[in-house]
């Protein structure tokens, strides 16, 4: 759920990078951290094992453009991809706004990709959230590897639905596709905020109109009661 601070004129979004172990989630954040200006980012925090495997999460706060005077802040998280850390993945998914699902393009990782995607769906359901109602994009990483599966196959196993989500090819180690992915999910989140804001404004107008209709009757009945007494 995005946090809107009307005093500071700031909107915060939480984006989680999800995917199987060693697919490139942390690499995405590391690349972003190294290629965003100092004024636009905070420190990259990694809670990892001695072997540099994500243990709890990686965290990177980003400041982005201001829209209509509201600064936008994006908090990027990764989850640990290893199967044994499912409980901690559930904790990181709390109050998320958007997801980047990073898939490993290697042929022998296809089953892990699918299992991780289902795991994402299941973990969101445990928190009462539905993936189909959350902005998410797909990133097909490691496109530089010779044994990578074709994109249309990845689309078939991960994006085979009536309304397809945006997907991007990437090589996170070189940065190819990293910012395209991030920009896409960020725009989806802003668009969702605008839609929700417009719906709330419409609902507010409808309530105001309903109140205006009843008021003249209310005044009339008060006058009647005053005359009768």
């Amino acid at each position, binding site marked *: 759920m995005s946090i809107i601070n009307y005093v500071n004129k700031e909107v915060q979004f939480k984006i989680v990078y999800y995917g199987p172990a060693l697919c490139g989630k942390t690499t995405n954040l590391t690349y972003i951290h190294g290629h965003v200006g100092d004024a636009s980012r*905070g420190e990259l925090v990694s809670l990892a094992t001695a072997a540099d495997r994500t243990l709890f999460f990686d965290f990177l706060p980003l400041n982005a453009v201001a829209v209509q005077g509201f600064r936008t*802040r994006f908090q990027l998280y990764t989850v640990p991809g290893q199967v044994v850390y499912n409980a901690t993945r559930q904790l990181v998914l*709390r*109050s998320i706004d958007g997801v980047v699902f990073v898939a490993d393009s290697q042929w022998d990782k296809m089953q892990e990709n699918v299992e991780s995607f289902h795991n994402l769906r299941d973990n969101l359901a445990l928190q009462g959230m539905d993936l189909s109602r959350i902005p998410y994009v797909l990133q097909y990483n490691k496109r530089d590897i010779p044994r990578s599966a074709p994109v249309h196959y990845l689309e078939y196993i991960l994006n085979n639905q009536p309304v397809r989500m945006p997907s991007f090819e990437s090589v996170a180690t070189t940065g190819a596709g990293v910012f395209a992915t991030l920009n896409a999910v960020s725009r989806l989140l*802003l668009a969702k905020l605008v839609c929700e804001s417009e719906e709330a404004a419409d609902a507010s107008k409808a309530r105001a109109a309903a109140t205006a209709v009843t008021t003249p009757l209310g005044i009339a009945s008060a006058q009647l009661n005053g005359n009768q007494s």
Partner: protein
Amino acid sequence: MQSLLADFLDKSQATFSLVIDRGGAILCQQGSLSGSIDFSILAALAAGSFAATKELAARLGEPEFNTLHHQGKHANILVSTVDDDVVLMTVFGPETTVGLVKFYAVSTVSYLAALLKEARTSRDSQVAISKSDLDTVGNIFPQ
């Protein structure tokens, strides 16, 4: 919320406090800390820590641990539950005691919970951003 936290820090002699949602976002902050610390990182770590501890409590059959106290040599942290979605993190030094901070935290979280409940039911505020505003925004992050 700001004035509530200011009053809490004044009475408890704590240094700094953050109201954080369970996702790690900062809802409100008051006070200061020495050095250049990114408060968003503190919030993310505190939320993660609290979430992990809450899960630990559940595995032990406890509904939750209402407060967490981390004691250091020069700085201490107290994390208190406000409601299901929000925690209050307080940083304090040797000039006060954990007992005093906990004492005032109890009433503070109660008032905070009431404020948040009122804020959640308020339907008046919207963000004045339209679809056409989004069209004028290029890449949110330059490539």
